[in-house]
């Protein structure tokens, strides 16, 4: 499968899981944000609009900049991360991904991953 296609499918699957997982929904019910997940090697990304814990829309990002929270990395790494095969905290500590946003938003992202795959 082409990397870009796999990336898109991974993000869509992740969004589906976030919207249907009860534990995640309970945790982030008051969280609203705009997240850009950007694959720097292919120059493509997806913007997730989150309102009160629900991801309302996923659309292709025009650039890596237009979001409140940004997660930037090699596409293969992002695919592993959003498939639950890599911990966000580990990737952050290892400098493999770049994450931009408030401390709180970054912790929320990590907590979502934890609830989905722990």
């Amino acid at each position, binding site marked *: 499968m082409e990397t870009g296609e796999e990336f898109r499918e991974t993000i869509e699957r992740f969004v589906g899981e976030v919207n249907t997982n009860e534990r995640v929904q309970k945790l982030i019910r008051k969280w609203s944000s705009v997240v850009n997940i950007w694959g720097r090697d292919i120059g493509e990304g997806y913007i997730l609009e989150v309102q009160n814990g629900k991801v309302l829309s996923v659309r292709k990002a025009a650039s890596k900049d237009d979001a409140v929270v940004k997660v930037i990395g090699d596409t293969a790494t992002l695919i592993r991360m959003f498939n639950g095969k890599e911990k966000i905290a580990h990737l*952050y*500590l290892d400098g493999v991904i770049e994450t931009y946003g408030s401390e*709180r938003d970054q912790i929320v992202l990590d907590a979502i991953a934890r609830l989905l795959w722990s």
Partner: protein
Amino acid sequence: MAPNLKRSLKFTRLVAVTMGTPLASSVFLSIIIMELITRNIQSLILAVIIATVLATLASLAYGELVSIYPSAAGNRIFLKKPMGNVTAVTLSFMWTMIILGAAGVEAYVLGNVLHFLIPFLPAIIWSFLALTVILAVNMLGVELSGNFQMGVTFFVAISLVAVSIVAWITPHPPVQFSGGINFVNVFTAAAVGVYFFLGFGRVTTLGEEAIDYKKGIPRAMPIAIISLGSVFLFITSAIFIRVPLSLVANSPTPQILLGNYILNRDTAVVVAIISAVMSFGTFNAGILGTSRLIYALGREGTLPSFLGNINSKYFTPTYSLILIYAIALAVTVFVFLTRSFTVPVLVAALFDSFMYAFVSYSAFWHHRKISRGDIPFRVKGGTPLFIATSAVFILLAVLLIATSAPVVSLIVLIGTVLSGIYFHFKVK
């Protein structure tokens, strides 16, 4: 808002963030130690200038590294390639502990300042209350806006300069220039002066989306360090010329003595309020960022996993914050019980000197190994500059080891060795 103004505001904020953590009340304690080492104004001023120049050079090393590794976990990533993962984790963990130790010293000073302002409670209770309030605020996830933090930082910096100018221009005893310059003492004092800048590198671990890691932070850090150095030069010399050394040596709050000596108790109250604002500003700047690192190590499995838990209502790392609180409180109690702030300040200065030496070495390593195109902020003459900076910081650390009580070196040595053994078995 016009793009240029917006960009300039962002840059000013970066300078403010870099200045925010080091601009703490505990620097007054390091001023006392420096005065006791140098004992004359010319040596003291020279020591502050040397500390500022060296910290500026260290900030260039940080700048080059952060441009290579934007939005990363700071020291750990910077040191990983040249020194190996276990060493990098050990040193960055120790550095976090040092910051927490400094937070404990800060709470000690803040307790004394609050006791001066509102004497009905003892200083140790004020310290406890202040730390507890700061824990609660952080647990509730309350964050001050960036612009408010920027305002606080610049208010404190300008106030300190203003107080110093008043101290210089109001009538005072003639300044004594007795005694020559002893360069061993000057460099030892400069090593203590490194404490002035403790935590400036925190800006490199911020995840704010507005931050320009590749050019903005590297340029903001040296400007912030030079600005801080200027502020410290003013306040250090003001305390030296106005407050007798015998009084400074026995006071946890030389800044309040300065206020008293300039005019009267009212001036001292103003200085105490500035000092309290400094403390709350530095706590606000440092605590959540530090807790996030411990949280991430807990999530990764390098530290106990319960440290990776978050509060589901406020999205804050509860246990990580409690650990931070406990460590800072323990140091505060230690300082109150022993009545000696010298040990934690010197421990911090010693470890900081080593850390700047390692970071400068890492910048040297990356400068040589990584192609020019992959370093967005490349310092001209980086190879000799970084290795020389590293060597000088090692020299400062050796001077501190040689001139301070053995317990200072022992704490750094034992802490580093035990952490190293722990992480040797935990880091995958």
